[in-house]
């Protein structure tokens, strides 16, 4: 029997996109498990090839989005997520998960702060893929659409850093237009290994044609949306690696 890659979704009080993200992962071929943070230890992380921090409002976004989740992860498992990545694992942070990964130092330096409008933004956006070989994005076209829903999505970084991220291929995704004041329109970041991706848009909300706001929109011949392609990309990468593992 073919072994499916396993994805572990860490759930905090206030995480609310875990169920649909789990469904999206399974649709793409993963087996998945939602694990409350209270049950997470270093051993539990070892069962997965992909760890996902899904969207929502962990700890009510108290203090600032992602901060209390960061502290709780550090308190429970220390730098185990870094070790997981260094050991060959993949990490995906969506929206609040992106904010948490940034705070944990798993992505290039910077922070996601209040949108310049001071308002929560819920809409579809057009995105530009700026890297060719990222395992999460390789199956996507250069331009595609996804929905966003956030109040704290404006990426800021130390002086000059955002330009460097653009030049060095760490700014994996940018918005086609300025939607929230993000520096260089950055919508998603990857780390230098390419094994960690954080993005503000919600790929789990665009799996099929019918999710698109335009009911006449047609994606590929299977009727899949851009979000599905993202999950399928990382699934194919991990499946390929597993096929070459001994035993």
């Amino acid at each position, binding site marked *: 029997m073919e072994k499916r890659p396993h994805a572990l979704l860490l759930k905090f009080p206030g995480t609310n996109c875990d169920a649909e993200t789990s469904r999206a992962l399974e649709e793409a071929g993963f087996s998945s498990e939602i694990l409350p943070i209270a049950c997470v230890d270093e051993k539990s992380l070892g069962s997965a090839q992909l760890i996902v921090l899904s969207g929502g409002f962990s*700890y*009510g976004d*108290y*203090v*600032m989005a992602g*901060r*209390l989740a960061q*502290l*709780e992860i550090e*308190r429970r498992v220390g730098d185990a997520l870094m070790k997981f990545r260094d050991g060959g694992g993949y990490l995906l942070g969506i929206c609040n998960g992106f904010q948490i990964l940034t705070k944990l130092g798993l992505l290039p*330096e*910077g*922070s996601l*702060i*209040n949108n310049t409008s*001071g308002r929560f933004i819920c809409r579809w956006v057009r995105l530009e893929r700026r890297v060719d070989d990222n395992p999460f994005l390789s199956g996507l076209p250069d331009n595609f659409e996804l929905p966003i829903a956030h109040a704290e999505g*404006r990426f*800021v*970084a*130390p002086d000059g850093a955002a330009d460097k991220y653009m030049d060095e291929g760490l700014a994996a995704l940018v918005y086609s237009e300025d939607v929230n004041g993000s520096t260089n329109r950055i919508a998603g970041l990857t780390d230098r290994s390419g094994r960690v991706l954080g993005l503000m848009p919600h790929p789990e909300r665009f799996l099929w044609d019918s999710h698109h706001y335009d009911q006449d929109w047609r994606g590929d011949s299977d009727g899949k949306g851009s979000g599905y392609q993202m999950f399928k990309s990382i699934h194919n990468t991990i499946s390929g690696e597993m096929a070459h593992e001994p035993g």
Partner: protein
Amino acid sequence: MEKISAEVIGKFESEGDANKLVYAPLSVPAKYRRTRIYMLEYEGDLGSAKDFVKRSLVDDYADDVFFTGEPAVEDFSFYIDYGMKPGALDLEKEAILSSHKGTEGFSIVALELVQRIYIFSDPSITSDRFVRDVCNPAIHVWSVTDSNGRKVA
């Protein structure tokens, strides 16, 4: 027992239109700026307490923090401080206290969280409208301080 007050202000945020704070348009232009204040009573080392504030409550890239007790902003008309009533369930405070477990060097005796709104306008604007539309008497306590540092409400 020692006390520190930390006022945290977003580096990248600027004054916004104060109409965002109220339900009906204001008659004259006014701007506002939000900050948050953590008042910490603790036992132990001051440096450790400050480290806790910086590590847990301040964003390295996006925030500035002031421990002086003086307003972090100048040239305001007045400011409103509001927070949860004593005894009300304050989940944010509980989450912060929970995150402190295991931190060495000091212990927290009490923590008070205050949201501060600075208003910038001409004297014809009073605090009443803002207090009515921002504060909820069922759960909040509040005070208003004028530009001379006098508590006026």
